[in-house]
């Protein structure tokens, strides 16, 4: 218990920003659910009463509990290049979701997904009065529907509508103070983009016995990107909205429950960026994980009720030219009779692999996931 408190306390003080986030649409966040964060972000297919994933909505067609999930991810990056190194903090709210099973009418999911993050901060070594800052990023509002096919036991289909919106910006500020001036003058330049668009994802899920399988694919989507500049300078031109193709992903995930409480998971996701960012290579992300599910009720020992997780994942390519490997560990435990806390730590290394100047960041990222579940919205007869 004391350990969990210490981890929670530390989590708030850790935060993550790297200049690599300036590339493409920014750092891409995986939409995994809380338990999956601890399993190498590969647990999309692991059957669950309460979990929801905006890509694999079909899995939630078998959910039985209404669940609200909120994720926080404070992190710290140790950035290094060929000359210097530094530690910087960051953090965000990668996901908020509401999962509503509707019995024989299927399943409905709502979610906010902070998919891209362009946060970074940098101060010129040559002149400390000049600073560059990145903020914001495109995010998604997701609406999904899943349905378990009654005539094919264990098979479900899902569809998700993704609304892309939000904006990112990068700013350069300079503080100038003449020797005879009492206060500095701050000069600020901003370049930003706002986004508005949508795409669809279709998914299929099959579960039978100890085996769970899921797959998803994005349909073609487009967004309007409107660039703007501001700050000290006036608009150099009228903002001209342009239409951009959105990246498209397809993925496959599997889970195998080899004992009553233990399971292994794996996933592989492919994303094409070519139509979005010219020259960007395809992005591959794969992960594996393990979970030991907690058991018992509120009168049992705390550790007996805790779930333990571990995993690893890797990323290659994409608009950020990622070369990432990370190990994950997770702990989940109940919070009262209807709540859950899932804590996951990611320890990894990320390099920009675009042939340019070297930039590497070693990150420690903590996911704090709070979820509450109930049988709200269902008749007693539909309870398990």
């Amino acid at each position, binding site marked *: *218990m004391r350990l*969990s*408190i210490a981890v*929670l*306390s530390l*989590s*708030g*003080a*850790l*935060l993550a920003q790297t*200049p*690599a986030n*300036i590339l493409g649409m920014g750092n891409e966040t995986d939409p995994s659910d809380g338990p999956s964060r601890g399993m190498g972000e590969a647990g999309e297919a692991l059957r669950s009463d309460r979990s929801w994933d905006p890509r694999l909505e079909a899995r939630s067609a078998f959910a039985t509990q209404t669940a609200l999930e909120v994720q*926080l991810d404070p992190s*710290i990056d140790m950035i290094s*290049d*060929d000359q*210097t190194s*530094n*530690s*910087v*903090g960051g*953090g965000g709210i990668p996901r908020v979701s509401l999962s509503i099973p509707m019995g024989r009418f299927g399943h409905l999911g709502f979610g906010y997904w902070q998919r891209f993050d362009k946060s*970074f*901060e*940098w*101060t*010129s*070594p*040559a*002149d400390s009065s000049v*600073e*560059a800052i990145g903020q914001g990023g495109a995010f998604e509002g997701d609406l999904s529907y899943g349905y378990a096919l009654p005539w094919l036991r264990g098979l479900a289909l899902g569809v998700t509508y993704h609304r892309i919106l939000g904006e990112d910006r*990068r700013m*350069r500020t*300079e503080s*100038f103070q003449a020797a*005879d*001036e*009492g*206060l500095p*003058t701050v*000069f600020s*330049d901003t*370049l930003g983009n706002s986004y508005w668009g949508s795409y669809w994802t279709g998914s299929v899920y099959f579960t039978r016995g100890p085996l769970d399988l899921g797959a998803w694919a994005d349909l073609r989507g487009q967004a309007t990107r409107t660039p703007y500049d501001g700050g000290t*300078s*006036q608009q*150099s*031109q009228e903002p001209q909205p342009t239409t951009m193709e959105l990246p498209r992903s397809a993925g496959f995930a599997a889970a195998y429950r080899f004992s009553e409480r233990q399971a292994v998971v794996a996933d592989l996701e492919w994303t094409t960026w070519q139509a979005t960012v010219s020259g960007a290579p395809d992005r591959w992300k794969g992960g594996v994980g393990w979970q030991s599910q907690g058991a018992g009720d509120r009168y*049992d020992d*705390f550790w007996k009720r805790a779930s333990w997780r571990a995993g690893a994942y890797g990323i290659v390519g994409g608009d950020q030219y990622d070369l990432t490997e990370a190990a994950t560990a997770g702990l989940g*435990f109940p*919070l*009262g009779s209807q709540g859950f*806390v899932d804590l996951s730590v990611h320890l990894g290394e990320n390099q*920009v692999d675009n042939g*340019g*100047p070297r*930039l590497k960041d070693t990150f420690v990222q903590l996911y*704090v996931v709070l979820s509450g579940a109930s049988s709200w919205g269902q008749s007693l007869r539909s309870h398990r």
Partner: protein
Amino acid sequence: MYGKASVNLRISALLLAALLAGCGFTDATNRTGTDFLAAQGITISSRDSFRTTVPVLGVQVVPVEGIPAPNGMEALWLGGTLGDSIRAVVAFDLTNTSAPDAGFKSIQAVDSLASKFKLTRLSFGIGSGGDTDTSVARQVHVRFILVDSTPQNTWKLPALFMGVEPSALGLTPIVDRDSDFVPSVNLGIPFGAALRDSVAARLKAAKPSWLVAILDGHPNWESVFSVGDPRLRTDSVSGTGEGSFLPGNFQARTAWRSTEMRSSAAWNRSLGWWVGGGNRLRVTLDGNALRTLLHQRLGKGIPTDSFDNNFNVLQARVRVPFSGFHWLHGASADNRSLGIDGAVVQDSGSSALPTSAAMPIKISHHLTELGLTVVPDLQFDDSFPDILQGRFYLENTLSDVPTRLSLGMGSTTSYTSTNFWLRKDIPDSLEFRISSQVRVRVSHYPNDSLNVHIHWSLLGNSPIADPQIGIGDTARPETRISDTALASTTSPIVHQEARTSFSLAVMEEKFNVDVDLVPAGGTIGMQDLWEAAPSAANIMDSLGMIVRPRDGNGF
């Protein structure tokens, strides 16, 4: 029991985590990733500092912004400074039977009572503020004139209020002499028998008349008095109520006004501030020359159609030398400074119209763009001798139309209405803004007496001045036109920060930027009078800049 205790601890931990979320730590400001960001176009070029001449397209002398107050709106001033005489004109209506002093006028109309309560002097109450001196008598030149209250003669009053000489209006003073003057209730300027008898005769005959007193202070006084409460008094009645003639009313306001009589030797190219007016200096910057200079020194980045966003002007210090400086010696010497504000002139126009014209200013479309929905009216009345009366009317105006002088009849949220006068015997003009971004100048010239000239400008922004805040939150002494150490110096030099104006000039490729050098008042308002003559042909003789290029496509 165990489980219950755990829940409380967990809740506490979660609350703590939530409170700390968003806090950050870092071992230093991040300086890592310089080469990486440079590869993405984020580079920081070194800044350049240099001194150059100020490229200028033109220089104008323009009046201080605002509409000078008509009669009865400002305090009544009398004095002399800057080599000028400050004139006070007061008109008494001798037959206004509804006035507060009507009873006394009736007494004066009866021979026996008039001989008992003889009008003896013009006196003043002690004025408020300023350089008031009640103990030292000064020589003032006094003229008393009786004017018939017929319309054509009454219409001569605005010209007298504006400083036109009585002789130009066909008026002959009954009294024209120097007299001792002390701003005191009990002392005053003696009438003399001739004037007293003339007034008594007019009162007895019930002949509608104005008695106009014109008082000229001496240019060498170096004092300005606020002479309130003017009245005609008797020997035997004291106090402030009974037994006095009070000033009459003209155009529904008290019939008095002060004006500064500019000396014939006054500088015609100056920056200054005097009773009822003043001068600004307007410099139109040559943006093309500035851009060419910067491109030659620092290179050219991304070309754009309308804006040059290649540079951050971190500092632009202009040097303004003056060859002469006059000020009111009695006032504090360290408050005279000038402001430099700049505005982008997006559009402008000029027209000469007959003085009898009653027309809307042709800028209504700009006002509509600014959110004002009505056409402003600017009308003229040429029926007053030697002056041209104008009237400005604007509905739905902002109540805080910026102005340095009084807006006459005031403004409300529903309309602004004010009248103003221009002298026709000398070149005369006034400039005011009818919104924060529309500037109008109205001028009349003796050699084109049948026309009034209107010049208007649509500004791209409200005029912006840069703060001149020095160390310790005090004004930088280099910004003053004279500080204590320079009070006896006749050629002060001012260094002002004007980075915003010059940034606008560099950026705006399609519009000119007008920079106004505006005289700033001191601590005693209208009495803090000063005037300075610039020595440089372009007013600002040099410019020190610190500029950093904006970089490539990164920003």
